[in-house]
């Protein structure tokens, strides 16, 4: 079996935050490009915002992936969850940052992302 098949290629990062901004970063490493393959997010908030935005930017803050998640609201809180799956290759040596935006008052956010190096 080739050595490259000995290890799983993808690195998964996960984070959770209450009443604070949340982002995940695959670090900038010279000679390495990250290929982003999966993003999963969920948000429970006390406001009535109906659209949650998630973006995955390179080191120069250029958005390569942006998607919105509709939030289901009730009288006192809203919940939203969404995911993205694909294959986007970021520039050589660039960090990749995945962040959630568009929420004025956060209660709980969870974010999970997977990328592999090439």
């Amino acid at each position, binding site marked *: *079996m*080739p*050595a*490259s098949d*000995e*290890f*799983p*290629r*993808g*690195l998964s*990062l*996960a*984070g*959770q*935050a209450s009443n604070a901004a*949340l*982002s*995940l*970063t695959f*670090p900038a*490493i*010279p*000679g*390495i490009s990250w290929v982003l393959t999966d993003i999963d997010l969920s948000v429970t908030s006390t406001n009535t915002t109906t659209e949650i935005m998630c973006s995955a930017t390179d080191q120069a803050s250029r958005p390569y992936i942006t998607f919105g998640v509709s939030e289901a609201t009730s009288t006192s809180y809203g919940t939203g969850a969404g995911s993205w799956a694909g294959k986007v290759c970021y520039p050589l040596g660039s960090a990749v940052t995945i962040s959630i935006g568009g929420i004025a008052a956060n209660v709980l956010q969870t*974010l999970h992302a997977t990328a*592999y*190096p*090439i």
Partner: protein
Amino acid sequence: MRRTLTTPFFPDQGYSMFDFWAFSSGGPVNTVTYTAGRTATRPAVLGGPTVEQHWLLISVAVQAYLRWVTDVSNNVAVYGKLGAIVTGLSMDQPALATQAGDQYLTTIQELPTDTSLLTTLWDPGQHSMPPSIASQPGPSVAWPGPPSALAVSAEISPPNPIDLFPGVQPVVGIWMLPSLLGVLSILGGARGIHKRIGLDIVGAKFTLNYDDGD
């Protein structure tokens, strides 16, 4: 007359082709082992030719052993990619310092401009994984010899013999291309005691085949 000269790259001891890089994410603390690449070069000291002589370099054979150094004391998971190891003749670079203690100081140098004098010594996409040994704190683990490591070899035969000039020593190099291997802490975010993980190259040597014109 055809002659050969065999030169070791370094003593028969393990040399890590990695250095370390750590980062934190929003979740558990992750430790990542990473190298931008490593280069080891060594000149062949031929002792000639003189200005009256015409010597020709015919070929270069490179042999080495690889081993995979793992940290078995921590509950860790590994992911990522290993870079290929390239070897060959460098006609446009001086010899570089090769080691300090058990680590290379030299990060990767650019590959020689004449890539026809290079070949792949180990390709992780094709070749098997080297045998594993347990890492330990401090200096590299001594190398007891085969079969505790994976033997790799390559030969570079230029289409036409290369002229050797007085005072100019051919330089043979080994280049490990960028690699990234994660050691992911899975113990509730507590960073384990990280020792060493990565690819060691041991017992590396090259044999220069040349013609001294006699």
